C-alpha cells in the first residue's frame, strides 16, 4: 500500500531543517476541501483519506482563507457558493497571497454558466467541474491527476 502511494505521487518528502542531510521521511499530500454542504464534504474527506491524502474541511469562505494559510495544502478543492465569502473571493485571496498563490485550486461547483467558468479560470483556478455533469468519483480521479501533475 505504501509503495503504491509513493509511486502514485500521493506521498511527498517532508522538508525538515537539518544539517544538510536529505530527509527521506514521507508525508501525505494535503487537500483542503472547501465545501459547506456536509454530506458532500464528509464523503469527499473519507474518499480522499482512503486514497492516502491528508485532508481538512473548511465550511465557509472566511475559514477557507485562513485554513489555506495555516494548513498550506498541496491542492484546494473549492466550491463557489459558500457562506461568509464566496468561492470567487477565496480564490482571489489565495492567489493574491504570496504564501498560497502557488497552490493549485480546482473548482467544483453547481454554477455551470460559461461566465462563472471563465471568471474562475481567469482568477487562477487550475480546473473547473460542474457538479451536475460529473459523478463524484470522476471528480476525485481528476483531483488525484491534478495533484500528481502539479508536483
Amino acid at each position, binding site marked *: 500500500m505504501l509503495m503504491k502511494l509513493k509511486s502514485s505521487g500521493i506521498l511527498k518528502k517532508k522538508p525538515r531543517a537539518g544539517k544538510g542531510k536529505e530527509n527521506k521521511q514521507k508525508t501525505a499530500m494535503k487537500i483542503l476541501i472547501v465545501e459547506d454542504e456536509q454530506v458532500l464534504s464528509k464523503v469527499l474527506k473519507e474518499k480522499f483519506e482512503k486514497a492516502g491524502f491528508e485532508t481538512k474541511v473548511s465550511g465557509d469562505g472566511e475559514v477557507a482563507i485562513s485554513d489555506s494559510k495555516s494548513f498550506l495544502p498541496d491542492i484546494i478543492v473549492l466550491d463557489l457558493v459558500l457562506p461568509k465569502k464566496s468561492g470567487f473571493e477565496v480564490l482571489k485571496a489565495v492567489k493574491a497571497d504570496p504564501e498560497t498563490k502557488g497552490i493549485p485550486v480546482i473548482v467544483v461547483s453547481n454554477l455551470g454558466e460559461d461566465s462563472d467558468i471563465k471568471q474562475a479560470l481567469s482568477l487562477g483556478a487550475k480546473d473547473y467541474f460542474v457538479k*451536475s455533469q460529473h*459523478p*463524484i468519483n*470522476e471528480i476525485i480521479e481528476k483531483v488525484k491527476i491534478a495533484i500528481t501533475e502539479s508536483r
Partner: protein
Amino acid sequence: MEKINKERRANFAVIAQRDIATVFGLLEKDINKMLADFEDGKITSEEEKEIEYYLSRMKGNMSKMKSYLVQNVDEIKE
C-alpha cells in the same frame, strides 16, 4: 458507533443517488440532441457526425458510470 455508521451510509447513499441522477441527466441530454437531429425526418451528413459523437459520448458515460456506481454501492456496504 452504530449511529456514525448509519450516518456515513446515508451520506454515501445520497451521493450515489446524485451520481445516478447525474448520469441519467447526461444521457437524457444527448438523447434529446439526437432526437432534435431526427426531428425533420432527414439526417444531413453534419447531423450524422453529431449523432456519432453523441453515441460515443453516451457509451463513455455509461462505461464510466458502470464502475463508479459499483464503487458507490460497495462504499455504502462497508
